[in-house]
Structure formats: C-alpha cells, structure tokens
C-alpha cells in the first residue's frame, strides 16, 4: 500500500493516533482536569484564577501514544490573594496542589504525581502565572531554578500559532516520530521547527512535508533555530535546541530517511496500524488464543 499511496498510509497512521471524545483516555483526562480545577479554586477561594487547557489538547496536536494534561492557572494583574510576587504565586500554587499530589517543581510548570498511584497514563503539568495587563493574554511566569526568574508568554498566541498553522497533520506525525525514535526533542520546539520548515509548503501532500522536515533535520540541523512566537526576543529557546539535540535529531532523521528509502514508510511507522478501538478490543479479547508466548507477571 505504501509504495502506491504513502499519503493514505500516513493518514491512516494519524487516524489510529486520534483520540475520540468518548475515548477512555480523554474521559480520564477530563476527570483529572476537574479534580485539579477544584483543588486550585478551593485553594485560592479569594481569587478567580483563569484555568485553561494548554498543550496538545488545546493545540489539537494530541497523539494517542504520548499525551499529557497541561493546565494554565493565571491570576489577574491586581489579584494579590494568590501571592504578591510571581514566585509567591508559583510557591502557593505548589502548596495548594501538594495537599493532594506530589509536586515536582519544573522551570515553569508544577508536575503532579498522584499520592495514590492512579491508573491514568498521563503526566499533569500546571503552569501558574499572572496576566500582565487585562485582556490581551500576555502573562508573566515564574522561572524556577533558572537565572532569569520571569518570563513573558502568551498562551493564545502559542495555541493559534500551532492550531492554525495549516500543518497539524505533519506536526502530529513528527511528534510520533519523536516518541517512537526516542529523540526527545521538546514538543514545543519540534512544533515550531515543523511550522517554520513548512511555511512555504503548506499545500504539499503529507508525505512530502514529512520528507522535507526529515531532510532538513538531517542536512541542515546546524542552522535550525526557533523563536517563541509569544516573545520572540525575550524567551531564549536555544538550550532546548542545543548542539546535542540537533545531533540526535540529525542522526535519527538520517536513519529514518534511509529506512523510508529502502523499505517504504511502513518501516518508519510500523507495518500494521493500531486499529480502531473496537478492533483493538477484539484483538485483546482473543489474545489468550493468539499470543503464543504467554508469561505470568509477578512482583518482588
């Protein structure tokens, strides 16, 4: 199939990575969002924080194989009940969340881990911040454990830059490539790179777009750079795209292009696709009579 119609194949790959609204994954994600929402609103009952989905859920670039729950928690410019300073807001939000979660302090986000291990398969990141003015969406975030303690950003600009880029399918495929090949480029950086590289190729078909991005990663990695669209001069992303990251991307892209060249697209994204939920359930239901090597798991 792939040799005749690589685009149909890649679109099928993306369909298998799409979470339907009633899927278990999205249901669990919404439930967790509700929990975190309640915790923050109860914890800051004298404030009215603006809580929103961020990340791939908001940008419509989610893939089934790897997704997180990202929530922004922004306070009004004059709202001091949550804290006088950005650092206070960050610390107070962490304290509130620690009532029910283990909280890992990341540079901008608070990563939550359940105190009672849950069945959910995703990470939860909460990003506290404060609006700079009133209505344009610009916010300041506290930067934990880094030289520059304050960072200006704008969630709406990020979301629209990616959601409305016209190349979301290519972004989702490259996210899958990033995960499957354990390249581990930061998702935001990867999204910006894909958008930039495809700025003049939006009308090309999906396979040509992905080939173009991989070729650029392989051949021009040293010249790759990204700018935060919400703060082009002020938010330095160079560390997230340093020479080591570029080298890893270049090597993975070279291997991927060689595989596509020699064996077609299926060598990159798998010979058989993860089927839809019903087919998947049927396959799993029949596993005892199909899977030849069966082991009984244990725990020390």
């Amino acid at each position, binding site marked *: 199939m792939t040799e005749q119609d690589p685009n149909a194949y890649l679109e099928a790959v993306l369909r298998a990575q799409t979470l339907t609204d009633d899927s278990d994954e999205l249901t669990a994600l919404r439930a967790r969002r509700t929990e975190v929402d309640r915790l923050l609103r109860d914890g800051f009952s004298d404030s009215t924080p603006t809580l929103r989905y961020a990340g791939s859920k908001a940008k419509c670039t989610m893939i089934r194989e790897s997704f997180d729950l990202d929530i922004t928690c922004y306070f009004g410019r004059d709202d001091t009940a949550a804290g006088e300073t950005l650092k206070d807001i960050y610390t107070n939000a962490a304290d509130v969340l620690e009532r029910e979660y283990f909280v890992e302090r990341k540079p901008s986000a608070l990563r939550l881990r359940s105190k009672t291990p849950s069945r959910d398969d995703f990470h939860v990141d909460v990003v506290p911040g404060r609006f700079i003015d009133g209505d344009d969406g610009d916010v300041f975030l506290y930067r934990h454990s880094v030289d520059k303690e304050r960072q200006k950003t704008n969630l709406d600009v990020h979301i629209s830059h990616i959601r409305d880029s016209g190349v979301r399918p290519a972004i989702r495929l490259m996210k899958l490539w990033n995960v499957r090949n354990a390249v581990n480029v930061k998702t935001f950086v990867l999204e910006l790179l894909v958008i930039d590289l495809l700025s003049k190729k939006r009308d090309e078909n999906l396979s040509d777009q992905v080939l173009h991005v991989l070729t650029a990663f392989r051949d021009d990695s040293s010249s790759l750079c990204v700018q935060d669209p919400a703060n082009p001069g002020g938010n330095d992303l160079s560390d997230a795209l340093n020479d080591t990251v570029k080298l890893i991307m270049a090597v993975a892209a070279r291997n991927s292009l060689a*595989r596509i060249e020699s064996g077609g697209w299926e060598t990159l994204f798998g010979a058989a696709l993860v089927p839809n939920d019903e087919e998947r359930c049927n396959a799993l239901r029949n596993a*005892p009579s199909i899977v030849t*090597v069966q082991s*009984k798991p244990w725990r020390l």
Partner: protein
Amino acid sequence: MRPWFERRPLLLASEKEAVAAGYSTLYFVVADGVARVRGGLPIRVGSTVVDHFQIEVRLADDHPTSHPVAREVGGRIAPLSEHHLNDDGQICLFLPEEAYAHWGAGATVRSFLEGPVNSYFVGYLHYRAFGIWPFGERRHGLDGSLDFYQERSGITTPDGVVSLIELLARGRIKGHWPCPCGSNLPIRSCHPGALNLRETVSTSIAEATLGRVREALRKAADSV
C-alpha cells in the same frame, strides 16, 4: 573484566541485526559499560499491532547467561503493584523460577522482546480493558514463588514446600529420598513433580527464594 560486548563483538552484532530486522523503531545503545535497547515497541496480538510503548531493555552484564530486564520509560504505566512493576520501574515479567521458559539456550534479545515483553504489554492492555490479566498473574512476593512450587510439585503444605525449596537450594534431590511433604514415601512415588524442578530451578534461584522464606519467618517471629 571487559564487558561482554567487547569480549563477544560478533554476538553483539548478531543481536543488533536481529532486533533491527524485527523492529524498525528500536535501537541499541552501548554506553557506560552497559548495552541497552531503546525505542518504541509495537505490541502485537498475532499480526495486529494494538499499541506501542516506549521501552528500555538492559542486557545483563553476563549476557547471554542471565536474562535482560525491561522498563517502560514513556510514563504510561502507573506504578501500581497491580501493574507488576517493581519500585525501580522494572517490569516483573515472570517469576525467577519461571525464567527458564523464557530465557533458555539460544534465547536472544529479539526472542525476549517477542516473548515475555510482548506478553506483558498485551496482558497490561487486556487488564486495562477488561480487568484481568489474560495469561494469569503471580501473587506478589514470596506468595507467588510458593504458589509455583505447590503447583509444580503437588505438595500443598507450607512446611512441605519449604522443605522442597531447601532440597533444591542444596542442589541435591533424589527420587528415593523421603518426600519433603512428610509422608515418608519416596519422592518418586509420592510427589514426582518435585523431581522435575531439578531441571528448571537452579540452586541460586532456590537459595534466593529460601532467603526470602527465612526473612519472612524472622519477621513473623519478631512480630509475635
């Protein structure tokens, strides 16, 4: 001593080649004196790929004598005991006593991936979907080991099972010896299944289990 992959470069090459032939999204990393396989593992039920997981498989320092260990590194599996993960994130693919079935002569990293590793992830997905492990599961800790010896030997009393493990740990067990169940009959005519365990349970594995038995008895005595 030099790492196994330096002493046996042809074995490393052959393992790499086999993994590459079967899995286009897995790759070898040899660093810090350790060989690992990393990347995305397609989970197969027959020819159907039902999911992918990010994994890291660490080959043993004495590879291929001891079996590799596997971890899910994508953060998709919550660290619940019911998911059969050790505290260090290592997947508990099987009881040490059952390792022989999955890592015998001629076993390779690829056969390990296609066998117990794939089996674990299929089981996990089945458990998430339907609430049960489709190929069965062992009780945690010592209980799971004791269940194994009971099933295989037919000896049901706890004292009898422990006596059997002691014999296996000593590395000597003969058919004409009195049965560890306490019947005073020869093992071969009382619980002959116990003799078969000589072939599959090594002295070191039985010693390790015996150590856990003694530890459990010590704790029980302390708590009285």
